[in-house]
């Protein structure tokens, strides 16, 4: 086996069971699959109106996902304590690349510092360490869009992601 043979790696596909309306399965690449990976990258397609990290309504039972390593997550805003992350939103109308295909409302920060970023053209959103991010709402959908996220850490464990389970939908 040549010295570079191991550098071509099959992409993992994470499927939601049952499927979540408006979202494709997610391609994932990082150190869980390849030892020398320097970042954790996810690629997915939004296929309808959709929301991420939207929280649960007041009084409703919290949704908690427990990962294979025991880490607790769920559909709530998050902080990343040990890595920066960038989300890239691109459209799929290749003849009109400035058309994102939907309007995205991305909440960045919290309290009086919270900024709501609204855009309907391709954009990247940079999330610094220790800054809460989410929810993200995709609305006015008229065409599929691709979302790529790049976490500047080889895996999610080392990024130290904390979920804000206290967040409640407005």
């Amino acid at each position, binding site marked *: 086996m*040549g*010295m*570079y*043979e191991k*550098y*071509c*790696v*099959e*992409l993992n*596909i994470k499927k939601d069971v049952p499927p979540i309306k408006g979202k*494709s*399965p997610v*391609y994932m*690449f990082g150190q869980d*699959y*390849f030892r*020398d*990976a*320097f*970042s954790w*990258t996810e*690629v997915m*397609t939004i*296929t309808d109106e959709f929301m991420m990290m939207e929280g649960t309504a007041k009084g409703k039972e919290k949704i908690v996902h427990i990962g294979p390593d025991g880490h607790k997550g769920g559909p709530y805003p998050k902080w990343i304590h040990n890595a*920066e992350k*960038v989300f*890239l939103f*691109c459209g*799929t109308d*290749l003849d009109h*690349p*400035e058309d994102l295909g939907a309007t995205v409302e*991305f909440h*960045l*920060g919290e309290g009086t*510092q*919270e*900024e709501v*970023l609204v*855009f309907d*053209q*391709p*954009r*990247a*959103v*940079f*999330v*610094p360490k220790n*800054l809460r991010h989410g929810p993200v709402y995709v609305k006015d959908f008229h065409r599929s869009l*691709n979302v*790529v996220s*790049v976490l*500047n850490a080889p895996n999610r464990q080392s990024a130290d992601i904390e979920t804000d389970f206290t967040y409640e939908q407005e």
Partner: protein
Amino acid sequence: MSNLKNNCIEMYLREDIPRRPGRAGTWILGQEFKEQEYFEEAPNMVEILMITGNYMMMNGFPEGFQKRTYNMGDHKGGPFPKYNKGCDKTMIFSGTNMEDLRDLGAHVEFHLGEGEDEVVFEFDSPRAVFIPQNVRYGPIYITDFKSDVMVTNVYTVNSKAAAQVVNDFEFVGDDAKIKKVIGNDLEAYKKFYGSDPVVPMEEVVKRSKKK
């Protein structure tokens, strides 16, 4: 006003004019050329492009063809294999067939390394290819196209200057492989590279400053 508004970043769209057969424009986060403003805090350069037909990258020119190089403003570029002297890079090939995401939508032949160390990866399902610093990569031939293929490039640095991209201008293209991509019509091949496919850098800088 919170300065977090600045964290919503307009990316640079690099388009070939005229558009090359088989490829749409590339969205770029990071600094593509020196005069371009970019968001310095974001640590990784990321490029997203869609392959829309049979296509080839870094394929060189066959014997007898006049080699072309392109003026990229602060450096010369061209369709030749490359080294990244200043960073590692990952190229992620993903499919767009929502009914079957294991179907890449085309066949990819990816050359990594050179001489005795060269390996040729062939795949038609989604893959990531890791390119270590200083290792030559390319050509890439995309054939048997069925549906759009998305390519996402992630670098360990956030500018092309820091990536220190070096072209192997001496590489001689493989005529048979090139014909497998574009067919036997060499006029089509001349057209493929018939005019400078990149928006002149002065125009790009002008647009960037206007924004």
